[in-house]
């Protein structure tokens, strides 16, 4: 059994951590948090130069041609650093959709630009409140153009292109949905930034008004492709969440060792110790579930749907738990803007909802386990 990352992959993780420690310190995250920039452009460029943006993109499309295990390793570091860049929307959502369903020409055009850092991509799926569901997609496609409104779209205001889920039928079946690729810079799409709980990651409303669009994948395959994209993104985002959980736990641990109250480090009080031990437990359960998700993703195993949902749930819970109790360990100082604790709290609660809520994934997990059981 080799249920671990290889030495080369671990080396890549160390490189990514070193790079992000230098290029993405909390100070850099705050530039975006405080609204001084929509995302960290210099970091984005650096990530491209390091080859991280195209790590899972084949060489023929300009990527590094490594694989998804390598991408998982990078994702964890991105979460740890709370990186304020459109990594998840571009790499987990847009690039994965292209890899799964793009034509040769589409891949040549967009994957190359993603890997080089020239293009930011996203997935325009949601239309207001609710979770992923073919029923909720109302945006209409007709004659190669799209009309309708999508929100929230992650990084929608800075994206160069979007993969858009649109309605192409009205039979009430999943096959009513098709995917389209829209170059957001060619007109017909209006983007409006929306405020959200995590200002270090943008959210937007995209209004499509007869916007030119080309099909991505076969007509009627949209929902089935989306399901696969969401599963893959769930694993990758879960690694970000695990990275964030670990960092929040470390911050709490360090503060508990340094801070003195009643003449002792607060980490010597059981109330605080046990809180940190419980954070470690959540983070460890999440990490192990994520490893299984990584295996399923990298081997394209039949277990992926179940593994992805488990990783997603476990990592969402761990990150919410660790980030909120990190503030608690820090006490009043943890509730100041000046301390970094709230940046993880914000990120944890925002990533909990990207790709659909915790309740949605709970439901999905049991559905999938039940199907497997019946089979």
């Amino acid at each position, binding site marked *: *059994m*080799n*249920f*671990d*990352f*290889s030495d080369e992959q671990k080396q890549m993780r160390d490189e990514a951590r070193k790079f992000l420690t230098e290029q993405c310190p909390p100070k850099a995250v705050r530039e975006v948090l405080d609204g001084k920039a929509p995302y960290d452009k210099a970091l984005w460029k650096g990530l491209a130069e390091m080859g991280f943006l195209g790590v899972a993109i084949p060489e023929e499309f300009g990527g590094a041609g490594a694989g998804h*295990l390598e991408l998982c390793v990078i994702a964890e570091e991105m979460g740890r650093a709370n990186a304020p860049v459109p990594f998840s929307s571009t790499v987990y959502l847009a690039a994965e959709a292209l890899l799964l369903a793009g034509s040769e020409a589409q891949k040549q055009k967009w994957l190359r630009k993603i890997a080089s850092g020239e293009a930011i991509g996203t997935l325009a799926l949601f239309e207001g409140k609710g979770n992923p569901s073919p029923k909720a997609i109302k945006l209409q496609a007709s004659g190669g153009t799209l009309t309708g409104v999508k929100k929230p779209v992650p990084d929608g205001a800075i994206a160069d292109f979007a993969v858009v889920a649109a309605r192409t039928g009205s039979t009430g079946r999943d096959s009513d949905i098709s995917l389209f690729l829209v170059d957001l810079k060619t007109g017909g799409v209006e983007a409006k930034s929306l405020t959200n709980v995590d200002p270090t990651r943008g959210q937007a409303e995209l209004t499509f008004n007869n916007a030119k669009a080309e099909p991505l994948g076969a007509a009627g395959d949209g929902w089935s492709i989306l399901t696969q994209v969401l599963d893959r993104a769930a694993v990758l985002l879960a690694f970000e969440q695990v990275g964030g959980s670990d960092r929040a*736990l470390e911050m709490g*641990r360090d503060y*508990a*060792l340094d801070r003195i109250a009643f003449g*002792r*480090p607060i*980490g*010597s009080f*059981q109330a605080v*110790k*046990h809180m*940190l*031990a*419980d954070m*470690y*437990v959540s983070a*460890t*359960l*999440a*990490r*192990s*579930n994520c*490893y*299984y998700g*990584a*295996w399923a993703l*990298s*081997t394209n195993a039949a277990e992926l749907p179940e593994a992805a*949902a*488990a990783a997603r*749930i*476990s990592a969402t*819970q761990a990150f919410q738990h660790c980030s909120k109790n990190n503030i608690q360990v820090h006490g009043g100082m943890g509730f100041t803007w000046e301390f970094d604790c709230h940046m993880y709290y914000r990120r944890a609660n925002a990533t909990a909802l990207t790709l659909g809520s915790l*309740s949605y*994934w*709970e*439901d999905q*997990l*049991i*559905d999938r*386990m*039940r199907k497997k*059981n019946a089979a």
Partner: protein
Amino acid sequence: MNFDDTPQEAAFRAEARAWIQANAPKQYEEELRKSSLGRTVLKGANILEVAKAWQKKKADAGWACLHWPKEYGGRGASPIERVIWQQEEGPFGKLSGMFIIGHGMCGPTMMAFAGEEQKRKCLPPLASGEKIWCQLFSEPAGGSDVAGLRTRAERRGDEWIINGQKIWTSGAHYSDYGILLTRTDPTVPKHKGLTMFFLDMKSPGVEVRPIKQASGQSDFNEVYFTDVVIPDSQRLGAVNDGWNVSLTTLMNERMSIGAGVATGFPELFEFCNNLMLGDGPAIEDRSVRSKLANYAVKASGLRYTSMRAISALSKGERPGPENSIGKLVAGSMVQEVAMYALDLQGAAGVLSGPDDAEVAGKFQAMLLRAPGTRVEGGTDEIMRNIIAERVLGLPGDIRVDKDVPFNQIPTKGR
């Protein structure tokens, strides 16, 4: 990343599988598979006899205590081979229940501290199951605080005279030997006045009384010592060095990798798949699904945590500290799972008879046994301390009894 065996591991697995296929007591397989939590019981047979026969067979063919040296009854196998064996042994491994303490705790302590002659004499029959061993550490006065124990050992020539009481001793009534931690000097701080021995459980003055647990079962005993004589040759480690000796034993208790901890999840999942509620199958109810999903990711989290440890063993590395979360997570999870399963049965959830209750009262039994799981072998609170201190590096609790002579430590809170 993969779940495949290396060629050597595959060869070992094939050999183990073939031998088990040819030799295991298949007539009990079904029954063993079903019994998942709490005590394993066989209907038409005495489990102790069946278990002893299987252990003997394993020992004769070189499959007992695999990781022990050959000269002490083992096979000299690697840690990963031991894990593979456990995986292959499957439900028949449940027959080893009564040997776990001997093999996991008493054996390693003997191996580390007994004389060569004693090791050659005592360890092979322990490995083969001919002799069963128990561990006599806990006392009414020392639970989580093991070193707070009061059983006295007083030197008389070449012998020691033991008086006192132990508690929570699993299997004392069918054990042949025990390892025994005693206080030999009450005038020094508590960790410094302890000494370890092993003794024949049939010695005069040893009295074993079963404890009726809150669940109604009796898995444990009290053991009383009245002027029990132990030769000094059966001392393990130096006089007053018993605390260090006991750490060897306790470390082994908490480091059992690959032994999957019961979480109750598979049982609950199956139950919810089959249970009809007023509105349809339980598993179609959103609130049931939400709970199931939460338990599912805990159970899978534990499973893959243990696989990460196995993977480290496979690479010849020392597993990380992750495995320490197992008992803490599983303990309260079993309790919650049981409570929820009863809840799903409505008012009838109170019924526990095998004929009246759903799935033969399995969850009712689980509910009543669960509080014990969160206490034995280290309470939830001690497990959290261990994680906080050994894994996260936080300071230990402040010990007010550390440098105080044992006989001056208060014995009552008020």
